[in-house]
């Protein structure tokens, strides 16, 4: 079984430790040897997305040095994974080892489906789940087919969830519209960001979601913030939490 360097986004480390632990549980139950290098902090995305690439560059180099020797790097976030795989190139133009490395960095569901070749995980999760397709996972990592594109349908997160016994899906009217988090966008454009989020929440309510899940906790942090403020009877769970719960006897 492969040896995996676990890449836990900074906000998961600080605010959602249970998501990190669930990721470890899922990987270990599948026989993966997991190692969490404690020198890691943040991939640098907030700075890069603000345009402050000088501030992001040292974090990108730290990341590479910390993780470069692992066979695979796995992360429970499509957005942070995409930061490394899609947006790090500029920082490593004189580092030939980066190119092969970035293709070993995987989002969790992608790793389970593409590397571990898992069709069905087993276990049960008897709930009605609304899947939020987080943008960077969907449109940068292509973890599923976006509604904009024409071609055969696939969705790696949904495929894993669909294999759980008892699960049902709430079918949304807008299957992959952005939740409005968008990093610093959430505060820069607070009004639009919150309207986008509330529209997503309303779509889930209409569709009858009991739990909103996503492969990115940042989207869920934003949606949960709105849900708690409005005291709505919805819950959010990272997909790793659902998979870990289902796999735990």
């Amino acid at each position, binding site marked *: 079984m492969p040896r995996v360097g676990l890449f836990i986004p900074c906000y998961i480390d600080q605010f959602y430790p249970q998501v990190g632990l669930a990721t470890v549980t899922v990987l270990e139950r599948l026989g993966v040897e997991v190692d969490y290098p404690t020198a890691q902090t943040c991939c640098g995305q907030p700075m890069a997305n603000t*345009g402050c690439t000088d501030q992001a560059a040292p974090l990108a180099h730290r990341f590479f040095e910390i993780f470069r020797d692992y066979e695979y790097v796995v992360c429970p976030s499509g957005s942070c994974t995409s930061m490394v795989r899609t947006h790090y190139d500029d920082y490593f133009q004189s580092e030939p080892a980066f190119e092969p490395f970035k293709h070993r960095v995987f989002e969790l569901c992608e790793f389970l489906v593409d590397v571990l070749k898992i069709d069905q995980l087993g276990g049960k999760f008897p709930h009605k789940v609304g899947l939020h397709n987080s*943008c960077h996972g969907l449109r940068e990592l292509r973890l599923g087919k976006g509604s904009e594109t024409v071609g055969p349908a696939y969705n790696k997160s949904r495929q894993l969830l669909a294999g759980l016994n008892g699960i049902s899906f709430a079918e949304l009217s807008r299957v992959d*519209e952005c939740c409005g988090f968008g990093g610093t966008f959430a505060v820069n454009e607070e009004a639009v960001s919150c309207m986008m989020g509330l529209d997503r929440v309303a779509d889930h309510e209409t569709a009858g979601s009991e739990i909103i899940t996503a492969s990115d906790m940042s989207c869920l942090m934003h949606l949960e913030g709105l849900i708690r403020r409005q005291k709505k009877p919805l819950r959010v769970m990272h997909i790793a939490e659902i998979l870990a719960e289902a796999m735990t006897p």
Partner: protein
Amino acid sequence: MPTATEKFNHADDATAFVANHARAKWHDQALWFVRQKRDRMANSLPEWEALRETASSIKAYTIAHLAELLEQFERQATKLGAHVHFAKDAAEHNEIVLGILQQHGVKKAAKSKSMLTEECHLNPFLNRHGIDVVDTDLGEWIVQLRNEPPSHIVLPAIHIKREEVGELFHEKIGTEKGASDPTYLARAARRKLRETFMEAEAGITGVNFAVAETGGFVVCTNEGNADLGVSLPKLHIACLGIEKLIPQAKHLAVFLRLLARSATGQPITTYSSHFHGPRPGGELHIVLVDNGRTDILRSDEFRRSLNCIRCGACMNTCPVYRRSGGHSYQSTIPGPIGSILAPSRDAETYYSLPYACSLCGSCDDVCPVKIDIHHQLLTWRREIAVRGYLPWSKRLSMRMMSLVLRRPWLYRLAGSLGRFALRWSPRFMIYNGLNAWGKQRELPLAPKQSFRALYRQRQAKNGKS
């Protein structure tokens, strides 16, 4: 145009638009409806993605060979009897058009939709010189009557409700008070616009595609107003940006299939009118405008934005545009593509537009010519920081954040302190005017321990180091 004293920030205008929640919701739904129509149309063509790829490579070729294609177009169009003019900027474009109109003693011109003439602010310029220009596209005419710019490049009056159109028409053209039936209003507009078509001494049109090989060009409309506008007068002036060129006539087969499907979810525009030289006894002038396009052409990062065929699909899909309205961008071309083009022209004024984006990437995937819009917006953010247009508060916070994140001990410390403060501070300390996150949202419930602490304990329990 924002003034120097009040610095334009998209977020302010967006906040004002969202404040009228019912209208913002209606606007969002109206454009989402167009996006869904586009999806259905795209899905009706199994070769859709191949078509986009082809269009993208034709445009890439065109942009790479623009100088020679422009010369070829000029040669061919001249051979067909057209007069070809080149304008380096908006002012020169306006002067050329005015000169032609004055030469012919024109007092009234009928104009069909042209974002280029909007970009050059041709209407007010001609008005100042005593020439009456009437926009004959229904939506454009509505915004012209309201004395405001279009809010969308394909659907110029998408921000206006039909009841408001009814009031406007009642006031301006004497329709019945309170009438808001679209058919009734459209008929009234048609009657009124017919007068313009009859009276106009010149027709001004935009151009969707100019074909270098033939010297001809194509104008796409749904209302036939371009054809009507140039059918009676002897004088036709066609204005276009230099990026509107395509190499060969056969390439129209690619672009015409993509344009209407992407724009409005129609298989093709109702009218795709081909012009090859002046009509018998008439005069045709073609004005090719640069107005900053060669600057974009020279930039490796943003060159691909010249691929744009102005279909507006990126606006219809943009979750921000749909909820903030086209006017919130304060730029002739709003929305995602406009947020690349506007800072190319004036980065200091439009610094906030690349940030009016959640980086969802939906625009890239609807774009019929595959412009990597959200990546270019990200590149613009870097440019804006490099050129020093980013507010100091943002620069400082990012620098502080980076300083902390480079030092694991400091990061751990800051994390613990932050979580402690979140758990124990009274609510008013956290939720106040300084916390934009907390205006409508709760912050996450801060756990006692971080993942890394819990992981260490777990490893110790399992007998691992």
